[in-house]
Structures are given as structure tokens and as C-alpha cells.
């Protein structure tokens, strides 16, 4: 056995002709004048920060006004009981679709770009759902696969009650496990493996709903918690049978407190979405001392990427705490740190979504084509329901500098715009509990520095040499 392993390692050491031959879109990105684009993006953010500084108090708050959409009054006949029935009904549809997807995960094509489960989970649900929440509000509360079946089977019963403050530890832990699966596991795309994980995750949460009641979805299930937070920043939302419209974060004008552990949860999310990008840069490969041109795949970096992700999450957690702490230490108003840290951390959400868009845009552009193909033949039996059987997936937009430039600028716009929203949001949040303009300015200074650095990081990740 030892001889076999030694022989195998020896063979690997002797291996030559590592055909790192393909020229990725990053090769064309390196030809773009990013040395001009990056300072321009940062300049936009700095300008936004300056505007928030020099504008009169409450000026920024006006941006976050809410407007009722009168048209939706026509739908007033839908009572709250009906609304619940719709929720149950839609959730049941999701539940049945999930079962079909899991079955296809086990029995369908072994190719992750042909299997509906792999494509749906990684290229549709995970990529699209956060954006949908941020635009249309909490549609996940209708679409999650647990609510309907949980309501029908367990009504409103529960055995244990969840603590409001501490429960954020649970979704934090689960999101961390999810991140490790997504970023570190050797084959998260593999249909068999993914079907097993999705199945176990569904059953585990189903069991928790039985124990803790349907409240589990609001406090324990990490995606419901994440998506629910995102929906608090949405452009459109529903409340008391009325529809509203407002700039990202307008709903927060009515929310003054979030549990302090929100910062832990959001630090893990932001760390995940930032590290998935950083871990592909040559810079990271230098740190872990691996030749990026000889990269031997995910199995060779399991330990390094696990540690990297955890360290990055811890780093972000403390740096954000420090940012908020320093911002409030030198003001003359009395502030209870525990009461404001949770609500302040919401400013991390638009940054997380910005990184999400920037990093996964290219994957989405390719994989959505595979999904389009799969819709025509979901059971991989040669059927051609939508006539897409002969459709060929293309990646030509990575082959020419014009399209690579457009893609890069969209990604960069997402990063900059996400940070602009974050700056405005952080300002408006503090505006609610700080009395004087001078306190407000001092409180925003450290977080402004943080935002500028994080914008730079995002734009740098987009433009530096990377693997894949």
C-alpha cells in the first residue's frame, strides 16, 4: 500500500506536459486598461462618500422614502388567509419539483452540465434567487419547499422554542458548512453527491420544523434567513396587504434593531462570496505556494481553501466589528454598541450581492445555456420539448476583447454600485439614532475606509491573473 502511494506520488512529481493550454477570458481582461478603470470606480465611491459628508443631516434619508403602489389595491380582496393558502400551495409545488430534481440527480445524466439538479441548484437557484429577493421582496417565503408541507403536517405546533438572539448561530454554522461544500468540496457539481446533500439538507430542516415549528424557517434554515434579510433591501415589497416601492433598504426605516450576531452571519456570507474569486487569483496561489499553471484541481487545495475561507470570515467579522466600534468610540453621544451593531451590519449585504453578481456572471452566461438545453430534454432520453436539441452552447463572448470589456464593466459596475448602496445605507442607518451631524460624520469615517478598501479588492479580483 505504502509502495503504491509512494509510486503514485512519484508519478505525480514526474508528471510533465501539464497542458495548461486554454486561454481564458482573463487573458483578454489583462489587455483591458483596468489601471484606468479601477481608480475610476473607486473615484465614484469616494465622491458618493463626500456627498454624504457634505449633505445636510436627513438629506440621505430622503433617498429611502417609501411609495405605495396604488395599483395593487385592486388585489385587496385577497385576505391574509388566502395569502397563506397561496403560500402553502406554491411551497408544495416547490416541494414536488425538488423531489423530481433529487430523483433526477440520482438517476439522470452523470454530466453536471446535463443533469437538471446540478444545473438548477448551482446555476439558477443559487445565482438568481438572491437577486430576485433584492428586487421583488421575500418571494422565497412562497417558494421554499418546506413551508407548505410543514404547515400541513405540523400546523403551528412545536416542541421547543427558539431564542431570538442566539439562533443566528445556527444559520451561521449552516451557511459556513454550505460554503465549505461549495468552495472546498472536491465535487459539489456531481449529481449524485449533490442529490445526497440536498436530500439530507431538506430532511434535516424538515426534522427541525417538526421540533421547533415553522418559525425554524425564519430563524434556523440558513437560506431562508439570508433571503429574508435580502428582502429587507428589496425595491418592491408587500406589507399588510399593500405593495410598496423604494430604494434598496427603504424598509429599514421602520427597523431599528437586529440581533448583534447578524454581523457574524453576514461576515460569513460576505467572506464566502469574496473568497470565491480570491481563491482563484495568482496572489492566493502564491500564498499557498502552488504553481497556478500546474493546478491539480480542487482535491489539491482542500486544506488551504478551508483555512483560507475560515480565516477570511473571522477577519471580516472582527474588522467590521472594529469599524463600527471605532466609528462610535469618538462621538459625544451615548450609544449602546450591542443595540446598533446588528442593524449596521446590514450594510454588508449589498456588498455581498455585488460580489455575487460580479463573480458568478460569467458562470451564469454559460450555464444558463446548458439549462435552456436541459429544459428541452430534462430526462436525458432524447426528447426535444422546446426544439433546443440542436442548440450549441457558446462561450464566444469570452473570445473577443469587445465582449470581455462589456462583461468586465458590468461586473465592475456591480461592485461599485453595491458599495455606493452600502455607503448610503450605512449613513441612513446611523442617521436614525445619531443626533448631530458631527457624530454622524465621525461614525461613518472608519466604515468609509472599509468600503473603499473592499471596492478595490473587488475590482482587483476582477482584473488580476487567475486560474480558470
Amino acid at each position, binding site marked *: 500500500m505504502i509502495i503504491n502511494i509512494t509510486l503514485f506520488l512519484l*508519478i505525480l512529481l514526474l508528471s*510533465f506536459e501539464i*497542458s*495548461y493550454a486554454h486561454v481564458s477570458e482573463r*487573458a483578454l481582461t489583462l*489587455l483591458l486598461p483596468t489601471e484606468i478603470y479601477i481608480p475610476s470606480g473607486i473615484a465614484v465611491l469616494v465622491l458618493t462618500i463626500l456627498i454624504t459628508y457634505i449633505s445636510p443631516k436627513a438629506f440621505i434619508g430622503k433617498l429611502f422614502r417609501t411609495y405605495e403602489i396604488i395599483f395593487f389595491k385592486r388585489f385587496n380582496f385577497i385576505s391574509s388567509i388566502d395569502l397563506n393558502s397561496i403560500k402553502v400551495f406554491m411551497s408544495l409545488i416547490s416541494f414536488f419539483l425538488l423531489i423530481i430534481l433529487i430523483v433526477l440527480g440520482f438517476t439522470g445524466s452523470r*454530466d453536471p452540465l446535463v443533469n437538471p439538479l446540478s444545473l438548477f441548484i448551482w446555476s439558477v437557484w443559487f445565482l438568481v434567487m438572491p437577486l430576485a429577493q433584492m428586487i421583488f421582496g421575500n418571494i422565497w417565503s412562497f417558494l421554499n419547499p418546506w413551508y407548505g408541507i410543514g404547515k400541513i403536517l405540523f400546523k403551528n405546533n412545536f416542541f421547543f422554542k427558539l431564542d431570538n438572539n442566539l439562533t443566528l448561530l445556527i444559520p451561521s454554522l449552516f451557511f459556513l458548512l454550505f460554503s465549505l461544500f461549495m468552495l472546498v468540496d472536491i465535487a459539489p457539481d456531481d449529481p449524485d453527491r449533490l442529490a445526497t446533500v440536498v436530500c439530507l439538507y431538506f430532511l434535516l430542516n424538515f426534522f427541525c420544523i417538526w421540533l421547533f415549528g415553522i418559525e425554524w424557517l425564519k430563524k434556523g434554515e440558513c437560506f431562508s434567513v439570508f433571503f429574508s434579510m435580502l428582502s429587507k433591501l428589496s425595491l418592491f415589497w408587500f406589507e399588510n396587504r399593500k405593495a410598496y416601492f423604494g430604494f434598496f433598504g427603504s424598509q429599514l426605516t421602520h427597523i431599528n434593531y437586529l440581533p448583534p450576531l447578524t454581523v457574524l452571519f453576514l461576515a460569513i456570507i460576505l467572506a464566502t462570496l469574496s473568497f470565491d474569486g480570491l481563491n482563484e487569483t495568482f496572489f492566493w496561489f502564491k500564498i499557498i505556494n502552488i504553481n497556478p499553471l*500546474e493546478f491539480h484541481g480542487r482535491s489539491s487545495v482542500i486544506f488551504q481553501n478551508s483555512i483560507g475561507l475560515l480565516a477570511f470570515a473571522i477577519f471580516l467579522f472582527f474588522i467590521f466589528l472594529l469599524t463600527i466600534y471605532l466609528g462610535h468610540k469618538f462621538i459625544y453621544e451615548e450609544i449602546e454598541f450591542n443595540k446598533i451593531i446588528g442593524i449596521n451590519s446590514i450594510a454588508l449585504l449589498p456588498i455581498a450581492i455585488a460580489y455575487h453578481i460580479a463573480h458568478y456572471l460569467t458562470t451564469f452566461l454559460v450555464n444558463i445555456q446548458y439549462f435552456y438545453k436541459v429544459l428541452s430534454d430534462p430526462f436525458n432520453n432524447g426528447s426535444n420539448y422546446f426544439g433546443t436539441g440542436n442548440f450549441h452552447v457558446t462561450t464566444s463572448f469570452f473570445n473577443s476583447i469587445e465582449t470581455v470589456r462589456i462583461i468586465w464593466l458590468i461586473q465592475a459596475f456591480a461592485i461599485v454600485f453595491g458599495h455606493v448602496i452600502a455607503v448610503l445605507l450605512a449613513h441612513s442607518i446611523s442617521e436614525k439614532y445619531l443626533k448631530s451631524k458631527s457624530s454622524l460624520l465621525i461614525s461613518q469615517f472608519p466604515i468609509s475606509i472599509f468600503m473603499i478598501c473592499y471596492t478595490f479588492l473587488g475590482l482587483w479580483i476582477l482584473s488580476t*491573473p487567475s486560474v*480558470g
Partner: protein
Amino acid sequence: MKKNSKSNLSRRKLMKSIAAVGSISAMPGFVNYSQASSSAPIRIGFQVHRTGIGAAYGRWYDRTTQAAVKIINDSGGINGRPIEIISEDDGTDPKRGAEALEKFANQHNCDVAFGTLFSHVVIGSAPRAGELKLPYFVVSEGHHVASGMLNRYTLQPGITDVKSQVQAMAPFVKNNLGKKVTMVYPDFAFGHDHRDYFSAAFESQGGEIIAKVPIPPTESSFSKYFPKIPRDTEVLYHVMVGPAVLTFVKELGEFYGSKGPKLFGFIDSVEAVDLNTPGLEFLDGSYFWEGNPRYAQDNQTVHDQFYRTAVGVDKNGASVSDPKDVSTYAHMFGCWETLHIIKKGMEVSGYSDVKDRSKLIEAVESMKNMPLSQAHPQGAKIFNGKTHQTFGHQYISKMTNGKLVLAHTTSIEDTFYPDEVDYTKQSF
């Protein structure tokens, strides 16, 4: 009418048939063989880079494979049996590559395994193929097969290896471009192989390597290395790879303007890239090795024409459905040819099921001449059964007005080197 036919069956008979079919079909892997064995598909496990750094190649390897399978199946399959492809993503990762082979052998009941490009995946997978006694036909270009590093179950009959490609360039470079060569290469195993194979072959031709300029793998700016290139360099041999390769070309152009040495490189540097990208004008007039000419040439064979049409590639080497989607034309023919070799091997050996795997390998080992044909559109080949490696023509093209025009075709003999192993002496 249906009703009548139903009534002719007794209920007991019907239940018995259902039970029999049900019990057989319920056994894993038995579904397809529940039919007559003569019509059961030949199951080929396709180890493919679907994710990871090789995904761009995987997409075109998949497209070529599907096209070849369609052609073979439409013309009667293998011994009258259709091919069924079972794809497993190897993640461009050796560990997953080995796992894919295990699944082919133990879960999917595949007859043989086939595919994959990146050398480290082949090297990580081949030992498992040997243990599983699963014929493993690779399309990777690596010298690892012919070097003797692998085993009797691993063969590379459909694509030539880097060692033969590199050494075959030497006579052309010396006779047509210049006798004084400077080599610029990434400073790790891939670049070192080019350095060693080419310099040995070039010096044996009477040429001279006047400088070797290694570049650190993580380098992204190259101007500081160009002064190391001697002024009397006649030919610059470059094999840069990775995301900074286009930056390298651009900076080289800025450094030399129109007065530089002649350039010779491998198409790998710009595989699947639109050659009309701004910044790459400097490459006009330079020479590239191509495994298979990307652009349809004036003397295009009917076989290349047929192959292009079947895969859906236009005369510029791009997808017919998107003229900007440039294929990995220099490499992907290997999938097409390998599948045709598997077909021929199975037909010659009278392959019926997994117990005939060794007969299949012996049949392929006994192959020698593979003439230019529909099965071999890239060109004629000579297979060496002892080293499990094929040898074939190499192409050198000159970039002319943003297109690659064939300048020279090597002989097959130019690619030969002494055998380094005899796998036929290994037992099954």
C-alpha cells in the same frame, strides 16, 4: 384493436412476464443487457473536463465525441451495437479522474473508458484503470503513455504526444526560419519539456540554441525579460501559457515593433482565441504548430470537410451556430479518431463483453497503419503497439492577415523517437 390483443394474453402469462422483466431490470446495470446481447449498447465511459481549468476543452471534446458517436451509430454502430456514452466530470482533477474510472467500471458497467486531455488527470487516473483492468483510451498529448510511466490498460492511439510534436518542428525551423534560436518558456515542467525536447532535436540538426529565457509562472509583465534575448537571435521559440499569454505577445510586439526575430510558437497559446483580437497584430507573419489546421486550407481533404460538418465547425474553425465561438480544433480531433479506433479494435477482436477487454487491447496493439480517412481526418498515423502511442503528421501554419495558412506538413517519420517501453510484455 388494442383491446383484442390484450385479451389474447392470459393474465398469468402477463404477470409472469412483468415479474421477469421487472426483476432483471431492477438489478443495477442490467437494464440494457436485458435485451438480446447482440443489440445491447457498447457503453463507453467518457471522462471529461466539465468543470475546473480544462472546462473550455471539455466542451469541445464533448461536442466532437457526440458527433463521432452519432456518425458511428448511424452507420450501424460497433458490431451492430450502438455506442452509449456515459459522461463523468473529472473536474480537471486527478483524484476525481480516478473516481470517474471506478464509477465506469463498478457502477455504470462500461466496456471501456475514454477521454480526457490534461496530463495530471491521466497520470492520476491510469493506475486505477490498471487495477480495474479497464481499457483506458486517452486523448491527452502527454508523453506519459510512451514514456513507460503508465500501464498496459492505458493507450493513446488517437493523438500524438508532445515529445514527437516538439522534435518534429526542429527541421522546419532550422531550414526555413533560422539557425540561432532563443527559447522563452514558463519556468516549470511544461516549459522545461519544450526546452529539453526542442533543444536536443534542434542541435542534432546542426542548429544552435543561443539563449534560454525561463519566465516565472506567476509573471504577468514581461518587458523586463526581453533584453535577455540576444540581438543575433534569428528565431524566437515561445511556449507561454496561462492568462498572461496575450499580454506577453502584446508586450513582445511593443518591444520589437516590426524589426524582431522570426517567431515560432505552439497554437496552445492562442487556442480558441479570435486571432483578430487587437494587440495580436504582432503575431502576423509568425509561425505556429497546429495539431490540426484550424482554418480549412486550399488543399482541404474530403475527410476534414466531412469531420468539420459533422462536428459543426466552419471553415474558420468556429462553431457553425456562432462564428465567434472558436473551437479547440488543434486537439479535439483526437476524440473522433480514438472512438473510431475503439470501434475498429472491437470489431477486429470480436468484442462482446467485458471479458474480451484484453482481446480488445491486443487488437489495438496490433494496429499499425491508420490511413487518412473519415476515421482519421487529421491525417495518416502509425501506431506503435509497444509504446501504446500513435505518431502522425504535424502542421506548421503561418499567420497571414489574421488567418493561419498551412506552411509545412511534417512527415510521420520526423516525429519518431526510440521506444522507451514495451507494454506488450506486461501481463493483463
